[in-house]
């Protein structure tokens, strides 16, 4: 069992009477890359700020290596933060920004010089020592911010939407680079993002948050394949989420059809939410299909076509590499292992139908979120 580095126990926090976090319990292990993932206002940044020492919880305790640190000010904690929009010191050049933490600790200048050049090569900024930070590009500022935090050799690095201000291409490159840095240095990363793809591709552990609560904690694969409720299923990737009834173990009824599935442990005739990922639905001729419906739209996405099918009034999304014509009637086939059953939750019936779906929604969800303070 890995060492528990940080523990949050029953943390609650409210701003102006509005609950931002309620009863958060979370362990962060040594050397782990943990991501707090959730939509704007879900409380992920506040959680990070509580770990960093910029907010104090109203209730609950924060432990660092078993010691309660609720009242320890930020400057005494063994964590460093990479801030949203970087917060580089505009009156200092690249070298002095990176050297800032060591200078505060009164480290000797020749040691500082050595460590700063080490950091600059780690983040690929050799030769930038004397540059004015406000003249750097977003990606370069980002690297300076990471170097400025890492040079202090923190036990935990907190990253608050560090890639939010970068364009898509640069963001992808930086994701790889950040992951490399984490592997190389072995420092525990706690990473806040609203970008599910970023969370899945970088993390060891993903913590999905909504409405100030933790919805699910797990590996990226668990989170994707075994979402606990409709919120998680909808937030991570695309999902068709349907109302269903668990007839007995390994047998579920939804969309007026009875399916075999791999889930058990539910009560007989218990109402459930059923998740079917769009890539797990097979398009077949109508006579071979378990269900059939009318294709209402087809969008070419490069790797696959995105097909919206109306089956008894519920609009399914199907991702298929084979083209089907709009307004044609198709059959669909669903393998037992493509079906995932979830207990009903407060999020049931809020997500999962693609009747209002349009490409615009995709863009909306990519808008970087505003600061939550």
């Amino acid at each position: 069992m890995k060492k528990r580095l940080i523990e949050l126990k029953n943390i609650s926090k409210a701003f102006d009477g509005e609950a931002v976090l309620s009863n958060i319990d979370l362990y962060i292990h040594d050397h782990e890359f943990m991501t707090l993932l959730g939509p704007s206002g879900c409380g992920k940044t506040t959680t990070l700020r509580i770990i960093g020492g910029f907010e104090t919880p109203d209730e609950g305790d924060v432990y660092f290596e078993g010691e309660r640190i609720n009242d320890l000010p930020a400057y005494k904690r063994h964590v460093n933060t990479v801030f949203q929009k970087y917060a580089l010191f505009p009156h200092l050049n690249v070298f002095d920004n990176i050297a800032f933490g060591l200078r505060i600790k009164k480290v000797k200048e020749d040691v500082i010089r050595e460590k700063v050049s080490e950091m600059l090569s780690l983040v690929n900024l050799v030769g930038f020592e004397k540059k004015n930070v406000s003249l750097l590009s977003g990606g370069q500022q980002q690297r300076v911010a990471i170097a400025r935090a890492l040079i202090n050799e923190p036990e935990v690095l907190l990253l608050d939407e560090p890639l939010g201000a970068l364009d898509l291409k640069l963001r992808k490159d930086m994701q790889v680079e950040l992951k490399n840095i984490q592997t190389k240095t072995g420092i525990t990363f706690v990473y806040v993002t609203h970008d599910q793809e970023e969370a899945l591709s970088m993390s060891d552990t993903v913590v999905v948050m909504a409405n100030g609560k933790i919805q699910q904690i797990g590996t990226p694969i668990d989170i994707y394949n075994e979402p606990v409720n409709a919120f998680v299923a909808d937030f991570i990737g695309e999902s068709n989420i349907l109302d269903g009834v668990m007839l007995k173990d390994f047998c579920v009824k939804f969309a007026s059809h009875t399916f075999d599935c791999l889930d058990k442990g539910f009560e007989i005739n218990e109402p459930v939410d059923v998740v079917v990922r769009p890539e797990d639905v097979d398009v077949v001729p109508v006579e071979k299909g378990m269900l059939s419906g009318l294709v209402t739209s087809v969008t070419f996405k490069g790797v696959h076509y995105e097909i919206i099918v109306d089956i008894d009034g519920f609009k399914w999304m199907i991702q298929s590499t084979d083209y089907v014509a709009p307004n044609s009637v198709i059959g669909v086939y669903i393998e037992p292992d493509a079906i995932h059953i979830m207990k009903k939750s407060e999020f049931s019936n809020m997500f999962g139908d693609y009747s209002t779906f349009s490409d615009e929604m995709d863009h909306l969800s990519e808008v970087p979120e505003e600061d939550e303070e």
Partner: protein
Amino acid sequence: MTGARKYNGPRRSALQRFAAAPHIAWAVLFVIAPLIFVAYYAFTNSADGSFTMANIAAFFTKEYLLIFWRSVKLAFFATLICLLLGYPTAYFISRCKPGTQKILIVLLMLPMWTNFLIRTYSIMTLLQDTGILNSLLGAIGIKPLSIIGTETAVVIGMVYDYLPYMILPIYSVMSKMDHRLIEAASDLGCNGFQVLKKVIIPLSISGVISGITMVFVPSISTFYISQKLGGPSTLLIGDVIEQQYTASNYNMVASLSFVLMVILIVGLAIVNHYTDSDDGGGMLI
């Protein structure tokens, strides 16, 4: 010529050029022309208008130098006290909630809407030997102070009149400061004092320079405050200029003003050079 011309920002339309005309006219009429007159009078004699250094030389006599030294001294103390009072005040205001900030700034500016002479008179009433201050002191059994007519009274008057000019530019820089920089500094190990020294002060220095300029310049050249609150022993360079003007000795007025102006410009240029803030917090020079 046109082909090789360097790009100097966006091209201006005829209308945009015309929009600057009133300002240019104003500047020529009320800034440049008077400066030329001041320079002309400073270097000529009153009898026949021929060139002379006599007026300038008069400034450097013991009598004027003593008064000039006193002006520098009192303005220096007034500026220092304004800075010591104004900096924490500006910091405090900038850390309040936006609504509170607005109220505090209005409260700060409110006295400035009252006529400057009236404000100085009211300070006079406060400080008089039989004034409110001494009545209060008497009431709690402290023997009355004789402040009016002293250099202290003049400095108090300067601080009272010019303090807002110190607070406002510092506040304006601080309110624009990104709060995350302060968090970043404490994240990197700074305690409260180190945050102030390493981040807040360096980033607000441009506001401090503007504040110092806006307090020091009017303080060193005031005549009204020293006349009302001071006495014969607190004669300032501004008083002398005013006296010479009343005596229609325009050449002397011009030379005193000219020398004072040159000293101020050189002094402030040196200060600006050594603080070299390129983010511009509202510099006057």
